[in-house]
């Protein structure tokens, strides 16, 4: 069970009123990537892959495809939920907001078709995991790049 979610739920149920209903309608237009650092999609330096297209990356992260184009196993690794990197990544690669990604995975999970990628807490943690395992693919801040991993797609 997940305590943060239950707490959210409780908060939602106890929300005082629907008064703020209209204002966000006008104000809350999403601005994906505003102010965020540049992201790079990475695989291990041991992985022979040279580059991926955004739609290929999207397929792996949305659980549609379990292999890299060269046939090797592909396992996605996400940044933590709610992180700026994660929101920007999905906005750019899949054109989905965090809520849309969540709705997508609800569909997949509760039809038995898949589970979302596992998560790691930071760009550095993701780089370390990816460096060690040629099957993993992640996305990190460009500033966290080093020679242990290989960028396969830049997200501007």
């Amino acid at each position, binding site marked *: *069970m*997940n*305590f*943060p*979610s*239950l707490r*959210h*739920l409780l*908060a*939602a149920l106890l*929300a005082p009123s629907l008064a703020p209903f209209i204002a*966000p*309608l006008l*104000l*809350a*237009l*999403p601005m994906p990537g505003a102010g965020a650092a540049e992201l790079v999609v990475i695989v291990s330096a041991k992985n022979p892959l040279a580059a991926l297209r955004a*739609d290929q990356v999207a*397929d792996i992260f949305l*659980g*549609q*495809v*379990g*292999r890299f184009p060269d046939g090797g*196993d592909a*396992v996605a690794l*996400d940044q*933590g*939920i709610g992180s700026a990197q994660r929101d920007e990544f999905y906005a750019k690669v*899949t*054109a*989905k*907001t*965090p*809520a*849309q990604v*969540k*709705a*997508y*995975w*609800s*569909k997949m*999970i*509760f*039809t*038995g*078709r*898949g*589970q*979302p*990628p*596992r*998560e790691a*807490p930071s760009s550095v943690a993701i780089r*370390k*995991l990816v460096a*060690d*395992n*040629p*099957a993993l693919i992640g996305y990190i801040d460009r500033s966290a790049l080093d020679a242990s991993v290989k960028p396969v797609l830049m997200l501007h």
Partner: protein
Amino acid sequence: MTTTVTTVTTVTTVTRPPLRLGALLIGLACAASAHADDGMSKPGWSLQGFGSAGAAYSNNAESDYVTSLLKPDGVGASGRWSANLDTRLGVQLNITVNAHWSVVLQVVSEQRLDHSYRPNVEWANVKYQATPDLALRVGRIALPMFLAADYRKVGYAFPWARTPVEVYSRIPLTSSDGIDATYRFNRGALKNVTQGFYGHTRLALVDGGFIEARRTTGFANTTEYGAASVRVSMLTTDLTIATDYIHAFYDGLRQFGPQGAVLVERYTLDQKRVNAVSIGASYDPGRWFVMGELGRMRTRSLLGDTTGLYASAGYRLGDFTPYLTYAHVRANSRTTEPGLNLAGLPPAAAGAGAALNGYLNALLTIVPAQRTISIGTRWDYMTDVALKLQLDHATTLAGSRGTFSNVQPGFRSERTVNIASAVLDFVF
């Protein structure tokens, strides 16, 4: 959901070396794809859930607006307000044994025909992932009809308060006990998933009766190309609905000799071959979506032959997704029946025959003909929680009671009923 995994991450990072943690989580996360060669597939389990808390209001007290034929009542005649239409809770246990074998158990609590919320095992199946692209399952499996039938109970996964009743309530059975095979193949940007299934379903009714669908066979094929998706599904089954009530009715008809037997044969629900076919398409580039479905069902029985369709469009404005839906179902089979010819019968027999004719025509009003215009909005209020507010403007047509039940003496077809719904959907 992802947050479940997050929590596990947070908890286990403290106590376990990262690689073990990674192995465990990947075991959990990748039940659908085999990773035998990366050495990271390990046994594990996870518990996930979904639910909806709904309240609905109807401005018509002469009938109940119902969302499924498997609900005892709805909103309207049995009360202006009801929380029973959309409220439910589901919990799913996923067990990953290894890269090839996994088990899923899903239990759903929602109002049943006996008015209780006694939980029901919605799915319980074992999956064998033969290759990364081919999966076989045995056990209780969701029926993949229409675009969304296999997740229609997971409100969080779709934009509306509920899936359009004109199409979806025609197949109230949501799972079958049997086998299925799912094969996916990708060619460039084209992604295709084909699923074939075979099984049976038996559901107890309150009065000792039952619904049974035997030799249910079908397939669903989903093709995606970029933001566009098309799903074609077909199903055929031998359907029986048995209740003491309806058997007494058939016995009554049979007392009228050959003409009664003809009517029994025409309308009985005893192992009748039922066919359903549907095609649905959606286009969802992110900022907005359009989707539509067309479904046809032939039952060769009291349940009639119908064509249902809907079209829906929405636009995403930040956390809000206002949408508009038009849905229509029409009866292709007769919704009135002259019934027994009573000419020349003795008065007592004619009286009994007239009562049977009246009852038959009352039964035929359940063959739906209806159109609904719905307007609403989804509000992604916070992580894992969405609130939907929806207004339905439903008009029953052609003498039918549409998707209404519990009709009172004052009920008339071809009238419009307004239903307002608020549904809070969540996943955990």
